[in-house]
């Protein structure tokens, strides 16, 4: 069976969930060979093996943290040369897409971004994408070179599938471009203790109706009662009520959780683009005519300042 390269997204050796989802998808089209780079690369092996990696190619070097994107492209190109895979899979983060694009260009390959599903096909892997603010679903494949495909978080289940996970150290020669863009400073984001927005099973969002930064505590309380991530509409972010890193929509994050709870969000096309593929959608909004209600499985027309605290209390009571 052909091998499939999976680029490992990890933080100092802790593998992020979307990479484990990639391993699930990779097993549908071949045998996963993981590529882990940078500080802590060696610590990823056990988790990757547990989820199906037959091999883990590792390489640690300071360049991966000190320079933007290109060192990782150099490493994936080296891995491609070593393995001759049937496809290369990368998570659809901002950086993941940039890495994948440059790799595809070097390989003379096509690239598909933001796949939400992947299956084996007669002429190579077929990727499903959700386009035009999720109003259309397309199926595409790469027609030239080794398919390079980026996959959105929450597109597949994480599955245990123990495999050998044989560690090999990857030999990488950095290109002239590798040191072109220097990372001169890095401020880690303060942890909120809540799940990562794009990875969360449940997202609770607030919009214009929340009417003030201080009122977001109501949204956060609901999120915490469900173990959910907190999102915000562009209106709420532009008003300065909540950080841009939490923005859901066309110019923010695109999320696809099991449950999306929209509070005080009208549901403009730009917002729908970022949440329309959620499995179950519920909304609370004062305006019965708000377009968000066209999407919901359950909606409450009412004042979120009455409905949301009551919901939070009820959830706490039921959870005991």
């Amino acid at each position, binding site marked *: 069976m052909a091998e499939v390269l999976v680029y490992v997204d990890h933080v100092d050796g802790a593998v992020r969930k979307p990479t484990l989802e990639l391993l699930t998808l990779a097993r549908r089209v071949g045998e996963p060979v993981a590529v882990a780079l940078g500080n802590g690369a060696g610590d990823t092996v056990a988790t990757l093996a547990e989820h199906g990696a037959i091999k883990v190619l590792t390489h640690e070097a300071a360049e991966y943290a000190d320079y933007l994107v290109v060192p990782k492209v150099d490493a994936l190109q080296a891995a491609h040369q070593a393995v001759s895979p049937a496809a290369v899979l990368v998570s659809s983060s901002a950086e993941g897409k940039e890495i994948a694009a440059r790799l595809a260009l070097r390989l003379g390959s096509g*690239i598909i971004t933001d796949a939400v599903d992947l299956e084996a096909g007669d002429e190579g892997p077929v990727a499903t994408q959700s386009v035009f603010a999720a109003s259309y679903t397309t199926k595409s494949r*790469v027609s030239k070179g080794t398919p390079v495909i980026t996959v959105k978080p929450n597109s597949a289940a994480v599955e245990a599938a123990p495999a050998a996970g044989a560690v090999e150290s990857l030999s990488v020669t950095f290109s002239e471009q590798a040191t072109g863009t220097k990372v001169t400073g890095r*401020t*880690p*984001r303060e942890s909120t203790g809540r799940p990562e927005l794009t990875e969360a099973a449940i997202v609770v969002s607030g919009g214009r109706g929340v009417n003030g930064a201080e009122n977001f505590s109501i949204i956060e309380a609901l999120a915490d009662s469900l173990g959910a991530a907190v999102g915000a509409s562009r209106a709420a972010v532009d008003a300065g009520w909540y950080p841009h890193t939490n923005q859901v929509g066309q110019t923010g994050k695109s999320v696809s959780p099991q449950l999306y709870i929209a509070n005080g969000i009208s549901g403009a096309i730009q917002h729908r683009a970022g949440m329309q593929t959620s499995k179950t959608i519920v909304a609370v909004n004062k305006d019965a005519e708000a377009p968000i209600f066209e999407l919901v499985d359950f909606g409450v027309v009412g004042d979120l300042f009455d409905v949301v*605290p009551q919901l939070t209390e009820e959830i706490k009571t039921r959870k005991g």
Partner: protein
Amino acid sequence: MSLRIVVTVKYVPDATGDRHFADDLTVDRDDVDGLLSELDEYAVEQALQIAENSDDDVEVTVLTVGPEDAKDALRKALSMGADKAIHVEDDDLHGTDAIGTSLVLAKAVEKAGYDLVVSGMASTDGTMGVVPALLAERLGVPQVTLLSEVNVEDGKVTGRRDGDAASEQLEASLPAVVSVTDQSGEARYPSFKGIMAAKKKPVESWDLSDLDIDEDEVGLENAYTTVESASERPARTAGTIVKDEGEGGKQLAEFLASQKFI
């Protein structure tokens, strides 16, 4: 000293319109009004601010690849304050994918001459967000992308890239390719004076032969990816809507429990 900035912009179908696919599975551009991609307005804005804050002699050129109507996007950027425009138009470009588009842009940028390329973070139709990275790879210059803050000084570009895990400060020497996010600063509205002045600004038209690109390097037939099918997402089945009469929160909790979320 002079600084030549090229801003790449895209003419896209209006996202609030009824966007759909044509028979050949390319984006239908006839039935929906087009406009300058909103996310590219931020690129134009940052280029103009760099020009305004510079002691150098700065020239801002806007560049687009697209059909005849794409001139509208150039005209908008010119009315915001760009100095001149280049329109790459050729029937053989229909259906060109991101890889092919990056080739055309790279050749055009090189022909125009540049010290800095400024792009938006993504288009509002394709939304891939890969063209700036592809452009940097093709041009062999540093990629300084997804900046929420950008500065150009002494032959260097610096900026802040807000990632999921951390906020990074980046630095690279010119020439370079920059992309900016919608957090980089509100784009200006064209003034009446700007709109009038734009009518007199030069718009050059280039085709593939001007760029030494063969027709078999671009277009739908030569794309690196194939769209096999496109289907309209079925409308979500109508859900239950209740009016809050004092029990709305409890009713919602009941629904969530029935779906096993609680």
